[in-house]
């Protein structure tokens, strides 16, 4: 069978090297080449869909080769529906980000081609981290990803970039090292119980742990993912990183990379340690609800556009973890759909905010006002993106938020009810942001801002189209995701509560 996933991972890597090797000063060529490579990856990822069957929740498109046989480590990749959606999210957003960040690398510490080479390298790692089916390989991608992001933030971001990059790196490394301790333990336990060491996730689900060991291992993985996602109280790096990064980097960071956290909970924490997952569920539900409310409240209070968007994301990640740990099929399907939708709506928000900021040379909300009249196209797209973020019916986020809340209510009604309050707060922060920046009189300094260029329109159009399309017709994604969620639930050993309820 054709090695789809390996091909998909290699194309951006080769492209990254090609961009990096271009002679100095050929910036335009570097951008065009990067865009071309990312579009090629997108094409490959769409072609890959032909080889994917939606009637099963098991891993497909699998490839497996020995890598470090002494430790039983394999280069093993494969996707189920959930992973496939994440890979697609990455490959769709990559060209959009490249197009949207066309002129963002000009005042970085390093050359323009470096920026685009790093972006492409990051795409490789994103594909790798979502498609790895060997825990060790996953860990390698999980850590390797940090390096391009670190340089993207630290070299091309705004005022606080060094600080933000280092904070991001140290938080992530700390989480990663905790996970490493758990991975080491898995290795040793698999060697004891299965005779030979293995990191294959399917094989690892057959291990038996003592209750205490299982809880420690679960925490090793979970804390790493909670930092990544980020869940309250592990979130403090995100607003700094997202506001210091260029908008393009922020899209990939918040839209795709952070999903590794929630994806990891679904792919690793639940199937590998079902007992511990059930044990910790109440705690995690509480943390999720706190994230939902806390993120939303802090978003309302922000004066910086990018920090505001970052805090809305913390709130949304709360919804996603809530859906995952509700342990119902609606909750988990909704969470997966939410990961996709959040990726697109955050991408739209960050990109447009970035364009606003670069036009005005300020990211403070109060510096804007009345953009509706000056730049109508930008205002309308920002409005649509905002509506998607507040989960208005008809926008894609609504479906996922609804599914998460329904899925949660059947098991934890109180959590669902509090989280519903998050929706109201979401309306508040989005509408306040729109009102302050877009409506009202045109404030000084904003009179002559140019509207979106053709390039920017081309970059944002697909995102808006996807948001609206998925809002009315989420079935294609749910069809792909549902069997995988059912499979995960079966591995964890939970079933949906009886629909009649009445407890």
């Amino acid at each position, binding site marked *: 069978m054709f090695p789809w996933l390996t091909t998909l991972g290699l194309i951006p890597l080769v492209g990254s090297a090609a961009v990096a090797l271009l002679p100095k000063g050929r910036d335009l060529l570097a951008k065009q080449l990067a865009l071309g490579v990312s579009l090629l990856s997108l094409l490959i990822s769409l072609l890959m869909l032909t080889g994917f069957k939606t009637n099963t929740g098991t891993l497909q498109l699998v490839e497996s080769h020995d890598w470090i*046989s002494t430790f039983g480590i394999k280069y093993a990749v494969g996707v189920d529906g959930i992973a496939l959606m994440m890979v697609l999210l990455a490959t769709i957003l990559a060209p959009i980000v490249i197009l949207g960040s066309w002129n963002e690398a000009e005042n970085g510490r390093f050359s323009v081609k470096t920026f685009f080479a790093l972006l492409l390298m990051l795409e490789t790692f994103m594909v790798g981290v979502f498609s790895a089916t060997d825990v060790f390989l996953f860990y*390698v991608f999980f850590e390797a990803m940090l390096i391009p992001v670190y340089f993207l933030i*630290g070299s091309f971001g705004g005022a606080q970039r060094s600080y933000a990059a280092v904070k991001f790196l140290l938080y992530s490394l700390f989480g990663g090292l905790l996970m490493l301790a758990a991975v080491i*333990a898995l290795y040793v336990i698999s060697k004891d119980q299965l005779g030979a060491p293995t990191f294959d996730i399917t094989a690892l689900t057959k291990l038996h742990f003592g209750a205490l060991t299982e809880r420690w291992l679960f925490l090793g993985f979970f804390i790493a993912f909670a930092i990544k996602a980020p869940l309250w109280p592990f979130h403090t790096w995100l607003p700094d990183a997202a506001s210091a990064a260029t908008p393009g980097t922020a899209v990939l960071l918040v839209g795709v990379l952070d999903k590794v956290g929630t994806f990891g909970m679904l792919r690793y924490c639940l199937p590998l340690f079902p007992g511990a997952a059930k044990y910790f569920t109440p705690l995690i539900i509480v943390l999720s609800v706190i994230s939902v409310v806390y993120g939303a409240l802090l978003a309302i209070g922000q004066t910086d556009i990018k920090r505001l968007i970052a805090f809305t994301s913390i709130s949304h990640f709360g919804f996603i973890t809530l859906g995952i740990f509700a342990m119902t099929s609606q909750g988990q399907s909704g969470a997966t759909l939410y990961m996709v939708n959040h990726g697109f709506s955050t991408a739209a928000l960050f990109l447009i905010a970035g364009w606003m900021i670069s036009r005005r040379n300020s990211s403070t909300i109060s510096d804007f006002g009345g953009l509706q009249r000056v730049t109508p196209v930008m205002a309308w797209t920002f409005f649509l993106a905002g509506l998607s973020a507040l989960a208005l019916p008809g926008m894609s986020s609504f479906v996922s938020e609804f599914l998460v809340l329904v899925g949660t209510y059947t098991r934890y009604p109180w959590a669902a009810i509090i989280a519903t309050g998050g929706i109201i707060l979401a309306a508040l922060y989005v509408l306040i942001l729109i009102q302050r920046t877009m409506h009202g009189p045109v404030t000084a300094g904003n009179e002559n801002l140019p509207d979106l260029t053709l390039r920017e329109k081309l970059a944002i159009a697909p995102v808006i189209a996807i948001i609206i399309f998925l809002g009315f017709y989420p079935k294609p994604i749910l069809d792909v995701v549902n069997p995988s969620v059912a499979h995960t639930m079966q591995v964890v050993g939970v079933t949906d509560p009886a629909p009649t309820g009445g407890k």
Partner: protein
Amino acid sequence: MNFQAPVIQYSELLPILIVLGGALLGVLVEAFLPRDRRYVAQVAISLVSIVAAFAAVVRLHGTSTIAAEGSVVVDGVTLFLQGTLLLLALGGVLLIAERRLDSEGGAFTAQASALPGSEAERTALATGIVQTEVFPLTLFALGGALLFPAAGDLVTMFVALEVLSLPLYLMSGLARRRRLLSQEAALKYFLLGAFSSAFFLYGAALIYGYAHTVSLGGIRTAISTSAGNDLILLIGVGLIAVGLLFKVSAVPFHAWTPDVYQGAPTPVTAFMAACTKVAAFGAILRLFYVGLGGLRWDWRPMLTGIAIVTMILGALFALTQTDMKRLLAYSSIAHAGFILTGVIAANQSGLQGSLFYLAAYGFTTIGAFAIITLVRDSSGEATHLSQWSGLGRRSPLIASTFAFFLLALAGIPLTSGFVAKFAVFSAAYASGSTALVIVGVLSSAVAAFFYVRVIVLMFFSEPKEDGTTVVIPPVMTSAAITFAAAATLILGVVPGPVLDLAKSAAQFIF
């Protein structure tokens, strides 16, 4: 009375003999060849004898015999470590031989015997000829290092320790610049080293008193058959451990490390940091696994305590350093702790992991110090951290390579350091030392912080106009850096062959 001539298996000892022969030849060259021809001859002798010795190690692959009447054990571990040492020494000698970094001809003083600031020193400088005694000294040290992990009894081990150490004391004092600092380092190293040798010797004497033999196999038998009072044995083990832990710079026997690493000429530091650690850990492994294998319930808690403080303090002290060489010195202390976790596992995978770790660490260290020789100002190497700021702008390639070495030392995936850490930590966990793994992981996080700090400095700080320049590496230094970087990458991406080699080698005979 019959006199039985000892049987010496010369072919099994060939690697050691070649290197020591090369050293003796170097002494003769120093005595009889005209000054201006010595350099070329010495470099050639050094490189040829190292390559020849490596070829001899390769030829011996698969051998396991006890040679020289039990004094030298040639088994998988010996050969793996000897091969590693020779490759590391090759890099070290290339750096030591480098004379094109500045106009003055290398890192070494023109005449070591001339007092700093004296008339003799000025005369020596005026002639423009640099003495070349460092080459035979390097080969002697290497010969000792090759014998150290192969020693089959405590006396041979002590002799190897001294043959390794004495030339290193001298070499530390040979710096051309900041000679007083260098000589201070040499003296400090010598005094503390002599002290630790005394500990070793006293420990060996006590163990002899217990076992009535100095052979490691004999000690093993004595421990397994004895039911008596072990106090004398335990004291002996403690004392002998002090001598060996001093060499690998484990806390609390680490105090010499930063001063010596900083004061010694950087090429010597590179050679010493890599080779001493490998050789001394080789000796530790053989002593504790073979001689004291039956006593592991007694020495494991002791080494566990030492490993924990070594990891924690090494990482914490490194945080506060402002000098690049001192920073790497503390990092080397922390790494000694990480390697000890593999030793403590006391099983085959611990042995395998330690062997792999030593190779991985050695290559990265050589590379990192090689790059330190390139960053210079008018007074020589610019080792203060502030002088490294903005290096990524000035010379992206050098800065990226250094960043790569730092990431390897930090243990980031796809570098050798990660595989090495995985190997030793998994062995330690399998042997039940969960606490050790957790401390190891946490100190790795602390260590990552200071490695990252240097990367931040190089890439995200503005370059200062303080006259710091980065020399384009001349041939020999480039060769050493390329070699080290390639090894670090290969051991990180496709570690399989070397891990398998370490696994098949991880078998002691006695």
